[in-house]
């Protein structure tokens, strides 16, 4: 099982990439835990997750080839 992660805004400076792939992640809680291990500075910044372009607010099951976006606070306009 493979998850594609898209990284935006200031998070891309912490992760130092705009895209990454993670394997064997079952849900978004696991994903966040994994990300905090890999990039401890992520814990300092509030971000929201979107799965396949839909924002989620609770722990959500992930499936093979899901696209998860890490969205820091929006600042358009």
């Amino acid at each position, binding site marked *: 099982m493979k998850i594609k992660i*898209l990284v*935006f*805004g*200031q998070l891309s400076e912490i992760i130092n990439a705009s895209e990454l792939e993670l394997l064997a992640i079952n849900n978004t809680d696991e994903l966040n835990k994994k990300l905090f291990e890999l990039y401890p500075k992520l814990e300092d910044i509030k971000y929201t997750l*979107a799965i396949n*372009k839909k924002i989620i607010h609770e722990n959500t099951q992930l499936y093979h080839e899901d696209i998860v*976006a890490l*969205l*820091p*606070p*929006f*600042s*358009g*306009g």
Partner: protein
Amino acid sequence: MTEKKKHKVFIQGTITPTFIADSIAKHSGKTTIGAHDIFLGQVRNDLIDNKTVAAIEYSAYEEMAENLFHEIREAIFVKYDIVCMHIYHSLGLVKTGEICLFVFVSAKHRKDAFDACRDLVEQIKAMTPIWGKEIFEDETHTWKINN
């Protein structure tokens, strides 16, 4: 409905006054319109920690933003009695004094134009995955925070 989805929101770089004028001119054939409300966002030379903003570089999760713009549009059409609506947002570099957001709502009566335009701007700011990187005159940067 599908036709509305085709609207292109993102524009590379600033939105020019000429582009705005052309957009206004296109409405002269729509003679049921009595009122237009146009909101323009312009990049400010804010002073942050003693450094002056020289430009904002905009980026977006484009596919998701386009879906959201479509949903926001549909909801505004249901909520207000308006004739038409256009949204344009810059991507990439926009210098201070230049325009980065152009929201254009037309209605028979002014109340609907005013209400819908303001609602639209607030929703765009709150709901669409767009980010502004404020670039200072010394080329360092910070990430914009909307209020």
